[in-house]
């Protein structure tokens, strides 16, 4: 086969999950010997596309996948591997307690005959592959758990190379690498390309894509925006392609007077996770935080709430220094936190709605710890009406509620608490438009009552329509604070993707 021929063709690929269309009618071609970058905001459909290519998801009927011109269907990941597609995930999937060589041959056991392990053959195969990649300093006998992340990634790639993969998918391969390691990875990728391998490369880092990609396909909201030659476009063009989303659902914030500073953060850091974060939030203000995956926004919020150690910098609440050691202290200082993953840390799924709503209220002092459930149920019913939580009874387990209603239950927890500061992390993730509108109006309600609001959201149009100011973070650093006047999707996205100095 000659270089530059189409090795992979996707025709009209769609994927519908219950209630969500993740991919709509996507066409894409990948040539051998090219690095093809896949670009898009959070939730644009990149992950779904990768999972289809690697056999984890099956596309809806009507779509077609062709490899070297022949139609294929993948029922499972093994089918994809047999069709010589190899995927390298963000979280590496090596066995840490096995050697490099053992890991490399693990998926090729059918090549070896007999019952016994063939240690010397394994080592020879691994050594040759590593040498071809110019990585001979990795000893095939080392245990994977002793390797650095970058070296583990090299082993993953060696695994792909030795299984004669023709298409290698890489999902954010540089997200946890240093600049040096990332540069070396780029060299390895160029080497693969020279050998005729097609690489599908997913990354948020525009400058990285600019340096390595031959062609770039941009997705937005599950739809194909277009495929372009890298040499024909600038970073700015790419940003416009990524964010050109219609502003059809806006949730303008009610005008409320902005008061004094409530929360002030100075030069905050937690180890190497994030550093040098400074901002202040006023009474009645919605302070948005934007950024892409890996911007460590959640980690920063967790530090504000006492869930992560603060290694440098200061937090002031109403002018007084505040050093939260655990969530309890933060709550005592009237800070509330609506976490990103409601199932993981927002709700107790096996308890009924009213017990979840009262999880904070119940902690008020009472005689001998007695809980007056009939009173608490009254509270829960009141919140159910205010927030329009749709349940047949407050005795229903939260487990059985829709995402939007679950999120309202999380909000209801803090209704009687009258917080000074309330932190929202992705408050509308995975919920329908109707519930989104309601949630934003409650957030506005909190602001109107004089609460200072810090809100992380990856939904850029929403963030822009709701927030009074937006701080943009990238890889644990702050990239700037955008005022209402300068708020455009392009501006925020260019801050979120610009090259790290």
């Amino acid at each position: 086969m000659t270089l530059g021929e189409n090795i992979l063709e996707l025709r009209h690929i769609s994927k519908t999950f219950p209630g969500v269309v993740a991919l709509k009618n996507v066409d894409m071609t990948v040539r051998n010997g090219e690095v093809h970058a896949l670009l898009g905001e959070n939730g644009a459909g990149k992950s779904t596309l990768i999972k289809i290519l690697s056999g984890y998801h099956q596309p809806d009927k009507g779509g077609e996948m062709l490899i070297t011109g022949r139609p294929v269907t993948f029922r499972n990941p093994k089918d994809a591997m047999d069709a010589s597609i190899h995927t390298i995930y963000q979280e590496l999937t090596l066995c840490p307690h096995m050697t490099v060589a053992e890991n490399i041959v693990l998926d090729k056991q059918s090549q070896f005959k007999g019952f016994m392990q063939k240690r010397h053959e394994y080592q020879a195969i691994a050594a040759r592959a590593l040498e071809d990649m110019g990585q001979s300093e990795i000893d095939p006998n080392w245990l994977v758990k002793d390797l650095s992340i970058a070296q583990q990634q090299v082993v993953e790639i060696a695994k792909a190379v030795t299984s004669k993969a023709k298409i290698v998918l890489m999902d954010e391969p540089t997200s946890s690498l240093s600049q040096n390691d990332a540069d070396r990875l780029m060299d390895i990728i160029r080497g693969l390309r020279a050998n005729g391998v097609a690489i599908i490369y997913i990354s948020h880092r525009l400058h990285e894509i600019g340096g390595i990609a031959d062609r770039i396909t941009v997705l937005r909201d599950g739809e194909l925006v277009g495929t372009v030659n890298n040499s024909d476009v600038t970073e700015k063009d790419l940003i416009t392609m990524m964010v050109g989303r219609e502003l059809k659902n806006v949730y303008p914030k009610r005008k409320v007077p902005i008061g004094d500073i409530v929360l002030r953060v100075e030069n905050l850091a937690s180890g190497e996770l994030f550093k040098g974060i400074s901002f202040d939030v006023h009474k009645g203000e919605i302070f948005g935080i934007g950024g892409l995956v890996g911007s460590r926004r959640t980690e920063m919020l967790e530090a504000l709430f006492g869930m992560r150690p603060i290694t440098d910098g200061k937090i002031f609440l109403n002018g007084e220094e505040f050093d939260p050691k655990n969530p309890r202290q933060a709550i005592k200082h009237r800070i509330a936190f609506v976490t990103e993953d409601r199932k993981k840390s927002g709700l107790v799924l096996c308890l009924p709605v009213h017990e979840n709503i009262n999880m904070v209220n119940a902690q008020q002092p009472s005689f001998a710890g007695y809980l007056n459930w009939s009173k608490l149920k009254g509270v829960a019913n009141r919140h159910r009406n205010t927030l329009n939580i749709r349940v047949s009874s407050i005795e229903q387990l939260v487990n059985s509620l829709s995402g939007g209603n679950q999120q309202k239950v999380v909000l209801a927890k803090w209704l009687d608490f009258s917080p000074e500061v309330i932190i929202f992390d992705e408050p509308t993730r995975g919920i329908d438009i109707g519930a989104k509108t309601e949630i934003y109006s409650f957030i506005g309600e909190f602001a109107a009552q004089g609460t200072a609001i810090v809100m992380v959201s990856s939904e850029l149009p929403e963030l822009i329509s709701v927030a009074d100011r937006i701080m943009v973070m990238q890889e644990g650093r702050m990239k700037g604070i955008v005022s209402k006047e300068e708020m455009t999707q392009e501006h925020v996205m260019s801050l979120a993707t610009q090259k790290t100095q």
Partner: protein
Amino acid sequence: MQAQAKTDKTSRSIIGKLIIQYRTILILVALMAVFSLLKPVFLNPINLLAIIKNMSYVLIAGLGMTFIITLGGLDLSVGSIAAVVGVGFAMLIRGGFMPAIPALLIVMIGAMLLGFINGFVSVKGKIEPFLVTLATLYIYRGIALMLTTGRPVPIVIPHFADLFGNGKLFNLIPSPAIISLVVLLISWFLFRHTKFGFYVRSIGGNPEAARVAGIDISRVKIAVYTMSGLFACISGLILGALMNGGLPNVGSDLALDSISGVILGGTAISGGVGSIFGTLGGCLIMAVLNNGMSLMGAQYHVQIFVKGLVIIFAVLMDNAFKSRK
């Protein structure tokens, strides 16, 4: 057609729910029906009261275990704590060294301390409670054996045996049954109507959510293990009274029997969902099995074989009717 299928599905899930909710009672009633048909003497009130008396110490340890398992933990050391209590009490009152009341207080505080150690080491050392209490299962048993050099110590005050063992109220109701009833009601109140019980259920259901809501997880955990120690102490006192002495080997099955009672009662081993009255039902199932099979002349060997079958049957029943998602 579709609507039909839907109603079928919901009605089936309702029946399934009812079966899960009442499966403990169903199994209990079924067993009692079988035994009373095969051996009419089974239903004799004296026999029924004997069942309750004989299960009392398992039930009390099981009530503490209900809190522990709902919290998402496990306490394997309760039997060893019960042995230390029996031995300790017997030695404190031996030869009039100490009056009974202060001796009782000392063993109670001692048992709570042993429970506290379980909780403290598990929380502060960040060790699985299974491992901590596996270790203390040996350590506490070792204490009981070392104190007595392995020999039983007689308890020779008559009121003690009446109060905790073979005494009967109105010449009818065995005193261990009354003690169990009191502990049962207190447990139920704590579990359902106090902050403490609410915290236990929340932490067991999702520790991360409990933490974000500001609940002091470490304190609650340690308190629960301390309470389990106290309940094990009461079990130990009943065992001591029934046997008229502190036996260092007593209660070696107590932990597993009480865990079985809790599981049979519908408390989830994964935490979060527990039932105090379920534990009563679960312990009754095991006690009825023992008693009924003894009446029928089955030996201990057969009894434990059947006990195992009933446990696996009950758990399979849960899974079969659980609504699949």
